[in-house]
C-alpha cells in the first residue's frame, strides 16, 4: 500500500525524519507514536503526499510520489481516508454535506440513505443538518472519521484522532477504526497516548511504530 525506502525529510535545514524504511501492508493496523514535535504529523503527510521526501523514495499504491502530478495526488487521496486532529471542515456546510464531500468532489452523488446509515454508524444521525462549529470535539472527530470512510478508501490515516476527546470517546473512535480494519482497511493511527495503544492492542493485532531520533522504529516490549 504505502512503502518508505530510506526516506528523509527536513524543513528549513532541520532534519525531522531520516533513514525511514517501512511498509504498510494491506489490511494492517499500525500505531505511530512519539513525543510532540517528533514528526508524527510529518510522517502522515508524507503518506498522503502533502509533503515530498527530501531523500529516499515513497511509493503510494505502487507509484513513486515524485512521479505524481497534482491530479494524480488528488486521485491518490481518494483512496486514502484522512482524519485530522483539527478535523478541518467546511464550516458553512451542514455536517451531512461535509461528510459527503469526498464523493461530491469526484462528481458522484450521495444517496441519502447511505449517508444516513454512515452517520448513524458514527452516532451522528441526529446531527446531519448541524453546522460543524456547533459540534463537540468528539462529534467532530466521529464526523471526520465518517468523511474519511465514505469513499471506501483502502487506507485510513488518523492524526491524533483522540486528541480533543475524553477517554470514553477515544475508545469509541478507536473501536470504529478496529471495525474498519476487520473489514480489510489498512489503518495507521498517530497518537502519543500509550495507554490507548495498550488498550486497543488487546482488540486488534496492531504494530506500534515509534519515532525516536528522527528514525521510525518498531516498538517492542518496552511500550
Amino acid at each position: 500500500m504505502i512503502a518508505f525506502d530510506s526516506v528523509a525529510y527536513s524543513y528549513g535545514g532541520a532534519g525531522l525524519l531520516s533513514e525511514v524504511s517501512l511498509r504498510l501492508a494491506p489490511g494492517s493496523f499500525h500505531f505511530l507514536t512519539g513525543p510532540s514535535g517528533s514528526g508524527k504529523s510529518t510522517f502522515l503527510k508524507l503518506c498522503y503526499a502533502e509533503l515530498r521526501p527530501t531523500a529516499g523514495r515513497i511509493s503510494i499504491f505502487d507509484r513513486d510520489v515524485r512521479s505524481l502530478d497534482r491530479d494524480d495526488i488528488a486521485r491518490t487521496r481518494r483512496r486514502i481516508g484522512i482524519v485530522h486532529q483539527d478535523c478541518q471542515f467546511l464550516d458553512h456546510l451542514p455536517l451531512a454535506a461535509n461528510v459527503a464531500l469526498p464523493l461530491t468532489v469526484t462528481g458522484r452523488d450521495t444517496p441519502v440513505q447511505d449517508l444516513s446509515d454512515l452517520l448513524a454508524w458514527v452516532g451522528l444521525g441526529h446531527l446531519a443538518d448541524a453546522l460543524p462549529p456547533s459540534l463537540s470535539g468528539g462529534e467532530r472527530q466521529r464526523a471526520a472519521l465518517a468523511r474519511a470512510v465514505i469513499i471506501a478508501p483502502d487506507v485510513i490515516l488518523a492524526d491524533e484522532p483522540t486528541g480533543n476527546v475524553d477517554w470514553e470517546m477515544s475508545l469509541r473512535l478507536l473501536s470504529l477504526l478496529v471495525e474498519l480494519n476487520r473489514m480489510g482497511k489498512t489503518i495507521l493511527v498517530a497518537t502519543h497516548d500509550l495507554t490507548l495503544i495498550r488498550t486497543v492492542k488487546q482488540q486488534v493485532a496492531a504494530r506500534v511504530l515509534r519515532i525516536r531520533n528522527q528514525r521510525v522504529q518498531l516498538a517492542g516490549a518496552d511500550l
Partner: protein
Amino acid sequence: MVLRHAERVVPPSGPSAWLTTLTSAAMAFLAVFALALALASGRLADRWTEGLANSATIRISAPADQMDRQTQAVLDLLATTPGVALARALTDDEQRKLLEPWFGPDLPLDSLPIPRLIEVTEDGTGYDGEGLRLRLAAEAPGAILDDHARWRVPLAVAAGRLRILGVVSVVLILGTMAGMITLAANAALATNAQVIRVLRLVGARDAFIARAFVRRFTLRALSGAAIGTALGMLAVAALPSADAAGGFLTGLGFQGAGWLWPLVLPPLAAVVAFVTTRNAAFGKLREMM
C-alpha cells in the same frame, strides 16, 4: 434522492462578491458610453468622408451688378469641365437656411453682400482642381473653389481618431475589469485557503476547485455587467436627441442596430471573468501543495 453540493463548496459571501459585481456594473456602464462614442464618431467620420467627398463649393464674391454674369460664367465653365457631373447655384432660400443657425430666420439676404454659392458634384473620375481654379480666375475673378478638403479632412481624421479612442476605451475598460476581477479572485482564494486545503485533502482536483470559483465570479461579472449595461443604455437613451438640437454631442448614442452592440458587453464581461478567474485560480492553487 441525492445530495448535490458541488456549487456550494465555496462560502457564498465576502467582500469579493459585491466588489466583482460592482466593478462589472461600473465598467459596463462606462463601456456603454465608450461604445456610444465610438459608434457616433464612426457615423460622423463616415458622413464627413462619404457625404462630402464628391462635392465642392464655388463661392462667388462680386459686386451685385456682376453677380449674375459671373454666376452664369461659372456654370457655363463647369458645364464643360471634365469630371463635373452636376453644378447648380443655391437658391436664396437654400442660402438663407444655411445661414439661419447663425443669423436667424429673417435674414435680409438682398441687402447683405452674401456670396453666391454653387454646388459642384463630381463624377466618378473627378475633376482637375488646379486647372479649374486657373480657369475660374480667368473667367470669373470673384469665384473661389472650395473642395472642402481644408476642413473635411482634419474633421474626418479627428472623428476617426475619436472612434479609435472609443474602441481603445472599451478595451481598457475590459482590461481594468480583468485586473479588478483578478484581484478579487485572488482575495477570495486567499480568504478561502482553508476551504481549498480541505478540498485538496478529500481528493478534489484543481479543476474542481477552480470551477467553483470561476463559476461564481463569472456569474457575478455577468449579472453586474448586465445591470451596468442596462443603466448605461438607459442613460444614453435619455440624452437629448440629435434631431432636437443637432451637433455631435447630441448625436452621441446608438442608432438602429447599433443598440445591439451594448448587449455584447455582459457576455464579454463574463468571458473576461471566466478567463481571469480561471488563470488566477490555477495560479494560486499551484502555489499550494
